[in-house]
């Protein structure tokens, strides 16, 4: 459903993306792995249009979305949801206001209907009775789950996850993984996640791609990735300090 072709992006002299090619299949969970600072966040921000590439194309249902005008792009955004690395909840709003924000801005629903939908989505991510708390009162795992509820409130076709488990304990990480699977299954949504959490990757991914030095160096199903002999990939998966990847 999304095809990325020869995507390039540099900041000043630093080349971050150096010709990325990737196909993202509809209704599947695609996980992009890579080391910290490799440009994973930069890459997914291209997909949702937060960053414009220097060159290359992103096709959504065969339509190039790189060169769209502001207003055309805005209508495409309604098909996307995004969970940010730090959840990016609005500090000045309660949990319920955060989750219901897209509904309040884009639909004519009454406050009562909005609250009902908000509660339903919050229940789906395992949060009950926290509607009136402020983001500052939540733990990291709760913030991520509220962020997930907000990302799926409009029932988007594509949800993008920027490191959904970073900073969480292993049990909470596993829980987030399960929530991703649960929420994805219901509507056969397309999920795209970037992470360096191998356990999460193996738990949820239908398809895995590794981003390294601005390119996709390996991709395939979990089985294929596990059996891929690429030394960089294998070192990353096993978390060894010995191999082609240098710690600087």
């Amino acid at each position, binding site marked *: 459903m999304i095809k990325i072709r020869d995507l390039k992006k540099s900041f000043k002299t630093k080349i971050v993306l150096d010709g990325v090619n990737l196909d993202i299949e509809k209704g599947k969970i695609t996980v992009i792995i890579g080391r910290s600072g490799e440009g994973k966040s930069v890459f997914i921000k291209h997909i949702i*249009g*937060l960053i414009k590439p220097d060159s290359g194309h992103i096709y959504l249902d065969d339509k190039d979305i790189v060169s769209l005008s502001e207003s055309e792009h*805005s209508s495409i955004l*309604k098909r996307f*949801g995004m969970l940010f690395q730090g959840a*990016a909840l609005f*500090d000045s709003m309660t949990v319920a206001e955060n989750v219901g924000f897209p509904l309040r801005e*884009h639909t004519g629903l009454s406050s009562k209907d909005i609250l009902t939908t908000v509660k339903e989505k919050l229940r789906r991510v395992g949060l009950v009775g926290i509607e009136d708390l402020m983001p500052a009162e939540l733990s990291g795992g709760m913030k991520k789950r509220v962020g997930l509820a907000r990302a799926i409130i409009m029932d988007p076709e594509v949800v993008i996850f920027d490191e959904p488990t970073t900073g969480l304990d292993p049990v909470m990480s596993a829980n987030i993984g399960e929530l991703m699977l649960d929420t994805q299954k219901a509507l056969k949504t397309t999920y795209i996640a970037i992470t360096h959490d191998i356990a999460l990757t193996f738990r949820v991914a239908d398809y895995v791609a590794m981003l390294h030095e601005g390119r996709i160096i390996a991709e395939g199903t979990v089985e294929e990735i596990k059996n891929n002999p690429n030394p960089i990939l294998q070192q990353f998966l096993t978390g060894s300090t010995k191999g082609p990847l240098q710690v600087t």
Partner: protein
Amino acid sequence: MKDFLESLGKKVEDALLTAGRIGIIFGQVCHLAFTPPFKLRNIFRQMEFVGVNSLFIVLLTGSFTGMVLAMQSYIALNKFGAESLVGTTVALSMTRELGPVLTGLMVTGRAGSAMATELGTMRVSEQIDALYTMAINPVKYLIVPRVIAGVLMLPILVIVADLVGIAGGYLIGVNMLDINSGVYMARTEEYLQMSDIFNGLIKAAVFGLLISLSACYQGFNAKGGAEGVGKCTTQAVVMGSVMVLISDFLLTTFMF
């Protein structure tokens, strides 16, 4: 010397670039301010934020400035035996110059810095990106209400500053300097014209625009965590204050 010129050249270049970028944001703000939907609630909240939060400090600076003005002008006017003009001097200085400029500087420190901190925090914690991904234009949602609030509230605050300044001057003039109260008021009314007040209010509106624009610009361009937010706040205050002083000079030159 060459290094100095080079760094000066770089500074000028940066300043021009910044001016250009702020100009672009201003253009967007003008366009978006008149594009529906209009979120009055956001505007009112910002007006409250700029106006109510700055009220106390404006009352304080306005009244003390008026009182000091009375004392200082008395010293000068006394030499010509023109003490009765203290009221006139206070009223003209307050309405034309000190009311707008001091209020502008105070609002920069009080509201401009807070705007920059809030927006800077939203930038570095990706809340502004989040707005964008929810198909909300961050400029319309965050900057437009703040700029409107700045343009509308600054003149109101300046009226307050003018009033308490003149009252402070009267208090000192009549009670401490023994100027006849009737004469003090008569002289004030005689020379103070609507146009003086009006010119001051135009200045105020321009200051309100520049202060809120610089604060929003700095906030939107914050990067790199808490340190970056602190830096953007400092820059918003410096930039806002400099803009107030420079535009004050330009407006005074052209309007009077």
